């Protein structure tokens, strides 16, 4: 055949193909006699035309696949399966082959995904898979790919019909562009997290999240594909023994073949995010086993080593997702989303800040992104602790050299003063306090060292006393003090140790931190270690470093926690909400930060315990956060004291309270709050002397804490030791006259001693800021001191509060009624108070003296577990 002949045939073909099928036949018929050769050629071509699509598709696919890409491995192009015409293979992956197809019924283009033959499942596995697939399909969410239907070919292959999306997979995009802009990456991560949240909420785990399973549509919408498919794989993988897909995105628990939950998807999202931000995978290797090994055992490079401009908060978020222990990752996609939102704001803030001409505001934002405490602070702490420990141990040996007996056993004592905030920026105050706090905690963990509790050291410093005088008052041998100075991008921390007996500085050092260089933390860690080796060759460095408890690796979370503590310790009405806010933000920054959960639990339970909020609203929260703290870290004293407080004051569960306090004190028997709460436990068991002993212990451990001193007054009153109570009350009142509730305690002591003039005088002078729970004590004083009108006014006030649903307790009412001699009313109120839980003071409160013989009172004491 030549070109001319082909031209003729082609013209004939073009003419006949235009005709309707019936006309084609008659035209061919007429050619059969007039031009038999042409007739034969056209007949062949027409037949070929009918089959061309089907026959040539594999050729196209084969050519395309020559460079390793798409092909038609199942040989389905051109076929019609069910009501779908298969047009071309779009891609192949570990799970199956995707074809572009046309749905004849609904007249739309669809994507059909055929599960590879080795996914052919037995009947029950297939049923399970279908159930899962349908559950996933039922999810109507903009970030999930819907499933139109599931079917089976004649060969028994499963296929899934899905929308055919224009766009590209995240894999294609990453392959093309490498890393992407932070804002683009965050946008994609956020949408994936939204999709995961919806799916996880329905109990569906993806198990195979990876860039190839994420579609990015032209309008920027992200759709997650293949939800639930990996389960089918997992069900067959053991049979065939093959490894499918890529191991790169598998979580450690998946690699180990353990049970997985939604947090495995969060891990995978972390890997994807790492890849989007840095252009590389966090766990590399040439072979699957090498990648798997890295996933199980290696820490990924910090994202900032590959991309220096990443905000610290963003880096922390990625690393949180890549925690090997699922419990240390975000608890769920919702938590992640909250953090993403925050990081997104910060990131946008940085960009805005760079655009603005105001350097000051830019610096402030930079500071928010790189709060200095965390590891930097810990590094300083470690250095200071080690140095102090060294000097103290040397000091301990010195007397022995002079021949003084038993010197080695001498307990050394030290107080850490709050670090001065040079420059006076008030926003630095929690930070400078925080360093001292860290040092106190860390030094406290070293044996042979008595460390004065921070509140005492702090309160004396705030009074403006000289370090040496403070040391004398606290009766310690050494004082550690220091300062923090922030200028431009540098933060300088100075620390020195003072020997109280000589007044001399025995050690000092400066630590400087370039706030702009985030690698400084690892550098400082190594400095810490080298100092350990220099100074303490006899003590293994690990032991010292371990004594610095890394409750969180997240600097920002640590900062926020310290600010929360700062407000919590004020224990007044305005400070509780602030403390709650800071603890909550600390948790948002590090969702697995146990200490912050414990702090938040305390901030809620104490707010109610002091009468600043109704227990109905606060208690469930306090319990929830305490439980979370316990789940995260059961070795924290703070967790157990928080649980004990709730058990004793709200649940009336003495056994549980005792148990929690025992645990707390086993962890740290020098924890003042634990002793204070144990005193209350003894009050509830009618053991006044034990309560007083515990109260004294708390005061000894933290002698200048207004709280401890005030509570000791209560214990002495409950024990009937009014003279001692008066001494204690006067001493405390002299030092901290404004501490919440102290005036009411002092007035009560005077009342019990029959010194009404003084009692009333105290009440007149301390009318401000009463602690709501102590209002009853106030009314009681009026009642007993013949100021019945004021007592009744207090009663009316309390009753109106109860009517209005504000916080007020029947317990307080009972105290006032008892003082007025209204036994029946007092008992009625006590009975109501008992509904709310345990009346801790049922046996010890002197106000109940006039009620003791009443059968209703005896019934109440029985109810509280006493013989009556």
């Amino acid at each position, binding site marked *: *055949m*030549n*070109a001319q*002949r*082909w*031209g003729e*045939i*082609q013209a004939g*073909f*073009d003419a006949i*193909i235009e005709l309707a099928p019936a006309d084609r036949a008659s035209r061919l018929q007429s050619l059969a006699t007039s031009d038999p*050769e042409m007739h*034969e*050629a056209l007949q*062949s*071509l*027409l037949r*070929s*035309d009918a*089959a*061309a*699509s089907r*026959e*040539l598709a594999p*050729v*196209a696919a*084969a*050519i*395309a*696949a*020559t*460079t*390793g*890409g*798409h*092909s038609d491995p199942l040989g389905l192009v051109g076929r019609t399966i069910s009501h779908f015409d298969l047009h071309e293979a779009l891609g*192949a*992956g*570990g799970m199956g082959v995707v074809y572009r197809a046309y749905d004849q019924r609904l007249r739309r283009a669809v994507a059909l995904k055929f599960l590879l033959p080795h996914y052919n499942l037995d009947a029950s596995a297939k049923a399970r898979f279908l159930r899962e697939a349908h559950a996933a399909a039922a999810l109507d969410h903009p970030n999930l790919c819907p499933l139109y239907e599931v079917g089976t070919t004649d060969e028994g292959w499963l296929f899934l019909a899905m929308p055919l999306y224009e766009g590209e997979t995240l*894999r294609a995009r990453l*392959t*093309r562009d490498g890393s992407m802009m932070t804002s683009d990456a965050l946008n994609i991560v956020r949408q994936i997290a939204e999709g995961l949240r919806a799916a996880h909420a329905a109990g569906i785990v993806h198990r195979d999240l990876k860039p*190839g399973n994420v579609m990015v549509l032209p309008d920027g919408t992200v759709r997650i594909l293949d939800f639930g498919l990996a389960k089918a794989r997992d069900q067959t993988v053991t049979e065939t023994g093959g490894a499918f897909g*890529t191991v790169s995105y598998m979580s450690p628990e998946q690699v180990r073949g353990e049970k997985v939950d939604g947090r495995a998807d969060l891990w995978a999202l972390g890997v994807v995010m790492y890849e989007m931000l840095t252009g590389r995978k966090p766990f590399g290797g040439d072979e699957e086993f090498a990648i798997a090994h890295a996933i199980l055992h290696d820490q990924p490079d910090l994202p900032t080593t590959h991309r220096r401009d990443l905000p610290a908060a963003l880096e922390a978020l990625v690393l949180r997702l890549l925690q090997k222990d699922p419990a240390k990752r975000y608890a769920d996609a919702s938590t992640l989303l909250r953090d993403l939102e925050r990081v997104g704001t910060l990131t946008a803030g940085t960009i805005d800040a760079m655009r603005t001409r105001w350097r000051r505001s830019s610096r402030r934002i930079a500071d928010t992104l790189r709060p200095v405490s965390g590891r930097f602070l810990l590094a300083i702490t470690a250095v200071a602790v080690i140095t102090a420990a060294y000097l103290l141990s040397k000091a301990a040996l010195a007397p022995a050299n002079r021949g003084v007996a038993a010197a080695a056993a001498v307990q050394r004592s030290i107080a850490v003063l709050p670090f001065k905030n040079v420059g006076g920026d008030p926003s630095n105050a929690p930070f400078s306090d925080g360093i001292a706090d860290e040092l106190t905690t860390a030094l406290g963990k070293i044996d042979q060292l008595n460390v004065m509790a921070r509140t005492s050291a702090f309160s004396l410093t705030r009074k403006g006393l000289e370090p040496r005088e403070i040391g004398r008052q606290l009766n310690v041998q050494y004082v550690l003090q220091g300062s923090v100075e922030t200028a431009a991008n540098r933060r300088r921390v100075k620390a020195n140790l003072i020997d109280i007996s000589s007044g001399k500085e025995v050690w000092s050092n400066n630590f400087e931190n370039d706030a702009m260089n985030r690698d400084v933390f690892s550098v400082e860690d190594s400095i810490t270690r080298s100092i350990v080796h220099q100074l303490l060759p006899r003590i293994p460095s690990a032991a010292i470093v371990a004594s610095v408890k890394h409750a969180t690796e997240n600097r920002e979370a640590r900062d926020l926690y310290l600010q929360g503590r700062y407000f919590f310790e004020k224990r007044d009405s305005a400070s509780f909400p602030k403390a709650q806010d800071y603890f909550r933000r600390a948790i948002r920054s590090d969702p697995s930060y146990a200490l912050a959960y414990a702090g938040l639990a305390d901030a809620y339970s104490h707010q109610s315990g002091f009468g600043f909020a109704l227990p109905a609203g606060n208690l469930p929260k306090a319990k929830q956060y305490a439980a979370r703290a316990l789940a995260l870290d059961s070795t924290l004293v703070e967790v157990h004291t928080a649980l004990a407080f709730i058990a004793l004051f709200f649940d009336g569960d003495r056994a549980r309270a005792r148990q929690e306090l025992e645990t707390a004190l086993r962890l740290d028997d020098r924890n003042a709050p634990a002793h204070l709460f144990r005193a209350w436990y003894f009050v509830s068991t009618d053991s006044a002397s034990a309560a007083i002993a515990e109260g004294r212990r708390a005061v000894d451990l933290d002698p200048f804490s207004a709280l401890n001193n005030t509570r000791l007054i209560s214990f002495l009153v409950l024990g009937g030791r009014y003279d001692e109570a008066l001494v204690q009350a006067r001493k405390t009142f002299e030092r901290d006259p404004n501490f919440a509730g102290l005036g009411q305690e002092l007035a009560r002591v005077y009342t019990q001693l029959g010194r009404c003039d003084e009692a009333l005088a105290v009440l007149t002078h301390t009318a401000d800021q009463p602690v709501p729970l102590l209002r009853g004590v106030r009314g009681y004083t009026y009642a007993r001191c013949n100021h019945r009108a004021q007592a009744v006014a207090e009663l009316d006030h309390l009753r109106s509060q109860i009517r209005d649903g504000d916080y007020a307790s029947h317990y307080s009412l009972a105290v006032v009624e008892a003082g007025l001699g209204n036994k029946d009313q007092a008992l009625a109120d006590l009975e109501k108070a008992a509904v709310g839980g345990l009346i801790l003071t049922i046996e010890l409160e002197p106000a109940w003296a006039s009620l003791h013989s009443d059968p209703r009172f005896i019934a109440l004491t029985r109810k509280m577990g006493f013989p009556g």
Partner: protein
Amino acid sequence: MAPASSEVTGLLRLWSAGDETARDRLIPLVYDRLRQLAHRRLGFAPVENSLNTTELVHEAYIKLVDAPRIDLPDRAHFLGLASEIMRNLLVDRARARLAAKRGGGLKALDISEFDWISDENLETVSELDAALKRLDALNPRQGQLLQHRYFGGLTLEESASAIGLSLATAKRDLRSARAWLALELKGIQLT
């Protein structure tokens, strides 16, 4: 050194305007870029990351041409040219590999050069190439259409534009060409 996109764009314009020397100068640039792109893929896991021939051709366009500044016909010209280069790359490879397999004693292959091409479908490449050569002799336009379709993944519109045909003509040509090719590949000769 990668050529500046303006250079490729400029050459493409000249070629569209009828300067055939511009086409000759374009070929090595496109050839290098195609191989470069294919090699870059190789650094990753094979299945998920490799591009098929169509994707490679289109990606070469994205990488080489200053897209916003170019008209659709110029784009089609580029893709058409890239299809031809892709075909040559694959056919050269196929010929060499198949000869080596048959023990034809041809010169040793530069393996690294061609590693991104799999052996699996080289028979098909070779057969298709031979068939298209025969079609070229019968009707070069149709030969080009099929080349664009199979080696470059061009759409009918792009193909029509590259060759300078109306869409209707291109459609007609393609249909008979496909019917012819389907017969040809089954070894059925028209007379």
